[in-house]
């Protein structure tokens, strides 16, 4: 009897313990938002909407306008996605429909492995190899919005290519064959069967990549320049939220400066959280159900 009683206790204990493990994730998310918000309050209440509309960011004058960082984040992410999406789809089509079997596995595996290389390496490559190239091509410093976007797009490329390929690979052979059996060409089949079939997965992976790109720090910090200015010249130095945080967090010397940086972190967290939530709830749900 005693033996059974102790196992009941242990059972309850183990259930509670593991429940705690699951709750920690929720507690962390809530505390992250709460802490970021708490430290942001000073800047947000003092600066109000101006924080978002003001372009000028001059810590020595206690002027903190986040517009250039926010816009910079949006532009660099948008450019990176615009460069990355067609190439990633190209690679995915190449790997699923064109490449001979002897190439599929080695190329596919190296792309997956490249997705695991830390972003700081991509940033380093950008600084030492891509920036000089841009300098030769466009003059100026070579550091700036365009360089950052290209490095960012190269960094998210392996992830996106791999996930897009996986989504396309889920198309049943029999479905493709039945399109071929109607006299379709390869492209007809890709267009009418493979892409529609994999659509939810492809869009979901793009949005996940977008979420990563928005929050990515190291790939861009090296090559963006951290200049708080919005310029139509995309080869000019610029900044983004992660770049500003990485460069200035340890330099904040006043509580308002500090609070302004936390506000930026909060904005970044909100943007990334909503992007990924959209991907999850809107697109990837379908995929999960479909399986």
């Amino acid at each position, binding site marked *: 009897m005693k033996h059974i009683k102790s196992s009941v206790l242990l059972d309850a204990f183990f259930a509670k313990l593991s429940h705690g493990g699951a709750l920690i994730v929720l507690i962390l998310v809530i505390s992250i938002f709460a802490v970021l918000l708490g430290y942001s309050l000073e800047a947000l209440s003092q600066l109000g909407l101006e924080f978002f509309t003001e372009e000028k960011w001059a810590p020595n004058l206690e002027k903190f306008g986040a517009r250039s960082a926010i816009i910079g984040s949006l532009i660099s992410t948008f450019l990176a996605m615009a460069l990355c999406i067609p190439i990633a789809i190209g690679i995915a089509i190449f790997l699923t429909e064109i490449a001979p079997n002897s190439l599929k596995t080695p190329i596919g595996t190296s792309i997956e492995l490249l997705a695991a290389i830390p972003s700081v390496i991509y940033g380093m490559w950008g600084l030492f190899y891509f920036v000089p190239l841009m300098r030769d091509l466009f003059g100026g410093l070579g550091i700036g919005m365009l360089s950052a976007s290209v490095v960012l797009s190269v960094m998210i490329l392996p992830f996106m290519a791999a996930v897009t390929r996986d989504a396309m690979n889920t198309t049943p052979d*029999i479905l*493709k064959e*039945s399109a071929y059996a109607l*006299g379709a060409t390869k492209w007809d089949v890709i267009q009418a069967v493979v892409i529609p079939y994999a659509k939810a997965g492809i869009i979901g992976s793009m949005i996940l990549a977008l979420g990563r790109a928005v929050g990515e720090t190291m790939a861009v910090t090296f090559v963006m320049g951290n200049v708080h200015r919005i310029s139509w010249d995309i080869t000019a130095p610029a900044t983004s939220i992660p770049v500003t945080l990485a460069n200035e967090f340890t330099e904040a010397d006043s509580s308002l400066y500090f609070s302004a940086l936390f506000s930026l972190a909060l904005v970044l967290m909100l943007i990334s959280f909503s992007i990924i939530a959209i991907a999850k709830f809107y697109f990837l749900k379908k995929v999960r159900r479909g399986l």
Partner: protein
Amino acid sequence: MATIATIEHEKALHVKDFSFTYAKTAQPSLVEVSMPIAKTCITALIGPSGCGKTTLLRTFNRMHDLYAGNRYEGEIEFEGRNILGPKEDLIRLRTRIGMIFQKPTAFPMSIYDNIAYGLRLQGIKAKSELDDRVEKALNDAAIWPEVHQRLKKEASSLSGGQQQRLCIARAIAVEPEILLFDEPTSALDPISTQAIEQLIMQLKERISIVIVTHNMQQAARISDYTGFMYLGKLIELGKTDTLFVTPQEALTEEYIMGKFG
């Protein structure tokens, strides 16, 4: 040597000394198969799994060419030429010889677009012509009454049996000469199976049909000719009513008596 009965009809296809080897295997999967396929008749291919019946069927529209490394030998004559030739236009060939698969293969698009797909591939763009031919195909596939009010709905909203008839409609919309059926009812319930069988029997008025089936009763019910295959060889081809009653080969007899398979 195989026993091949004489075919009273014109030939839709003529297979001559045909051997087939899959990529990366040395052993051929089909060995020197010779058989005529009668025009506007139903020819059933039966045999235990792995006997090569599906492999043979997939040669007629050269599905095997989608995967590298498969090897053909011999000849298959269709419309007066050997379709195994290197200059064969596979895209055109596949519009002349359609195929229906083991499972319904509705494309991820609307019912209407599923049917119109093959027509659009042939360059038909005019809305009125598309409408007419979609309706005709759905009628011919005996599914028009069930779907005409929801043509814009996703094809996946149909039941399995309806989807399979939709696939048949899609295949006949482009007016092929021959239709290949690869175990078309293996994923369906008995009622849907019956509907498909009736449909196939109606289609043979205009279209020559080859059907692979694992179900001997099905072959007996619907086909005019039956070919029995075993271990990559055609053992016997005969008129269905004679083959099932008085098989000429001992192997055929054993198989239809259920001694193996």
